[in-house]
């Protein structure tokens, strides 16, 4: 009988319960993260053109290549290699501006894979987010290319009508005080606009480098140095490839949250903490003659400039990229949701703190790495109570 033959004893291997697995494997996890990073990368390629696509591709390929080399050196393929290496490369590419020379993303991705991941023993063993390890190492090595001062005080972004295919040079210098926003600009002949990065303006302001205009403390910053706030949300401002388009980052983050691979508490806590820190921490009021506390309550000429200032802090710079893609890496965050809240709040506050008072650039990357170091402590402090035992 058919049914009798169907049972083949040899196939029945003993195994321990459970006999059915849940839906997701580490391959799904990596795949979804890569997809989310890919969404953001795509938007970056639209905003910064082929140069950005080149940086991302180079970073990915270099990451995959480095993983192969590591696997070859170890004599066996690296676990979860392809997907995790390409994810690391992609994330590293997202933290770079599109104008970097070709060797920066390539070396960065290799450094990330070799020093960030392989040195610790591969998938699941590293302490610091590998892409960020690569990022801070190349930030130090290629200081002139990646610093925000000097030649890099201004940076390009594609102009209206030139998206996706435009080149970043030659660029037309934007006169900030008269700038009414990217969308209202008539289509210029040059394919790109050059302007100050919003985050550089915020840093300069915190250091008191933007002189007040009579009584007005915040207005000179908002009026003369920053693009309209919508621009920082749509991403039409200069900055790292993946960090400017907040909308894409939110979509990517929501996708990850929906798949269950990112806990919603983490980005929420991080952004809330960063917003709170920006709202409360004092800034040096022009000329260095004292501190201005609680900027969020500032009102000038009947406008709530303080609130605008806080909103810029949240959307400009790498905070959003950090919250939705960089900080949430499973291996380098605490295990439990409440640990992740502590972790993320720490990252948010530290980012704003370093932005206001620090000298290091890429403050969000450094804060994530600092908090990565504390994950062990946070995990130990946020243990669950075991059923039937006295809480420790």
């Amino acid at each position: 009988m058919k049914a009798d033959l169907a049972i083949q004893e040899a196939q029945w291997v003993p195994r321990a319960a459970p006999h059915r697995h849940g839906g997701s494997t580490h391959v799904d996890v990596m795949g979804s993260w890569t997809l989310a990073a890919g969404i953001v990368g795509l938007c970056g390629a639209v905003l910064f053109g082929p140069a950005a696509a080149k940086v991302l591709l180079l970073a990915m390929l270099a990451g995959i290549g480095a993983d192969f080399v590591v696997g070859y050196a170890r004599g066996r393929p690296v676990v979860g290699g392809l997907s995790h290496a390409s994810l690391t490369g992609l994330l590293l590419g997202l933290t770079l501006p599109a104008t970097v020379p070709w060797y920066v993303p390539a070396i960065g991705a290799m450094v990330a894979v070799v020093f960030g991941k392989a040195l610790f023993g591969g998938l699941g063993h590293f302490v610091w987010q590998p892409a960020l390890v690569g990022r801070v190492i190349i930030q130090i090595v290629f200081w002139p290319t990646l610093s925000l001062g000097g030649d890099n005080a201004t940076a390009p972004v594609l102009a209206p009508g030139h998206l996706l295919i435009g080149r970043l040079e030659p660029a037309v210098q934007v006169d900030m005080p008269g700038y009414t926003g990217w969308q209202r600009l008539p289509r210029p002949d040059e394919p790109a606009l050059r302007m100050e990065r919003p985050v550089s303006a915020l840093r300069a302001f915190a250091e008191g480098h933007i002189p007040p205009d009579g009584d007005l403390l915040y207005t000179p910053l908002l009026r003369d140095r920053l693009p309209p706030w919508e621009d920082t949300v749509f991403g039409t401002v200069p900055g790292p490839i993946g960090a400017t388009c907040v909308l894409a980052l939110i979509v990517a983050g929501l996708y990850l949250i929906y798949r269950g691979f990112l806990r919603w508490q983490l980005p929420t806590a991080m952004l809330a903490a960063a917003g709170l820190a920006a709202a409360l921490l004092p800034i040096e009021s022009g000329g260095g003659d004292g501190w201005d506390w609680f900027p969020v309550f500032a009102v000038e000429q009947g406008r709530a400039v303080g609130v605008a200032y806080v909103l810029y802090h949240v959307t400009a710079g790498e905070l959003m990229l950090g919250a939705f893609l960089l900080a949430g890496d499973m291996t380098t965050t605490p295990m439990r949701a409440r640990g992740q809240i502590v972790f993320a709040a720490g990252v948010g506050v530290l980012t704003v703190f370093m932005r206001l008072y620090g000298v290091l650039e890429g403050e969000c990357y450094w804060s994530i790495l600092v908090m990565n170091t504390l994950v062990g402590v946070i995990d130990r402090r946020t243990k669950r109570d075991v059923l039937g035992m006295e809480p420790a």
Partner: protein
Amino acid sequence: MSLLLNLLGPRRGFEGGLFMPEFKAATARRPIENITADRALFVPLRLAESWQTDIVVSQGERVVRGQRLATACDGRSAHVHAPTSGTIAQFGRVWTPREGYLPCAILEPDGRNESVPRSLAWMSDSFVGQLTDRGVISPSPLAPAAEVLRRASAAGVTELIVSAMETEPYLTADLRTLVEQPGRLIDMTCEIADALGVARALFAMPYRHRRVVKRVTAEAQGRYVEVAALSNRYPQCHPVMLVKTLLDREVPPGGSPLDVGAVVIPLAMVRMAAEAIIDDIPVTHATITVAGDAVEHAGTYRVPVGTPLRALCDRVGLLGPVGQCVWGGPLTGISITRDDAVITADTSAILLFSEFEAREPVPCIHCGWCIEDCPVGVDPALLAQLESESSTDALTVAHLRACIDCGLCSHVCPASLPLSATIQRSRRRLVPGASAAEGGA
């Protein structure tokens, strides 16, 4: 829909746990079907290696349905009865998933299915005595029903919980019994509560099947059985979790509900008691779910004890080769490795899957899902690292004992690490005096 119901459902219970995909649609609506014995039955003469029974029939003897084949030598074993009428062809050994090889009687059915004349059979009048006479057992923990009740009385329990929570996927035997005979189950619960003299009797069932809940509640109207409808978040079916949810008492690590003054009885025991006492037939059949993607007619069946797996497969039909066979639920069950296994009285389900789910484990990626979902709150990732240790501290021992072997951690782990199996092994190795079955769901 089920998600909404789960959200609207009563909010009490334990931390952790997981709503499982149910896979019950195929079996939940099919009535319980009787399977008649038409081929040789391999009736195990005791249910556990440690039980003591004396064979009271001889080779070649004709037996009738309900006739005793083996008597228990002491209170810790149960009598065994013939599932149908026929001839004892031989005595031999048979393989059971839980206990390995057990002595068995090979019974050739004669197809007449004659039953034993009533007057001969029973001697005892008391409730507990009747349970003993008719060989009623409790499948988990495996013990004769009378012994379960005796231990509960000795522990001085004040609450009785009957658990009809089948939160594991695929299982529907309890649900079908509730649909088909709610009155008898409530009656029997009252009897058991009387026998134990408890202050409260609770009947736990899944909130998700609200029409069944309504019917059972209607049956329980005016009786002192309280029907408690709970969310079916796995492992709500586990005694430790039931005690936590219903009574808000926490069983100490490695303990049982008896330690906190409650006894949890599986519905299967109540069902057997109802058959034994109300229908006056001894335990000769097991009501089991046969399901899985390799089964053609998945459903709940009442199968004679001793039916070989092959015969059962012929009866339910297979859709293709079976890659994996499980005795019990998909999360806590035992894998069947031989096709000559037989259905025992303590079987709750046979699951036949076309695919053997094997995933290559990778290093822990620190996702925290195992901690978040663990119902008792231990850190499975940490405990699993004890694999290579030879000794450990008191706290870790307590954690090892607190684990209830629900299997959730391995189930959710994206790195496919065999966490719960490793914890079980470590417990057996590192915890003095811990038995393999400790806690068992």
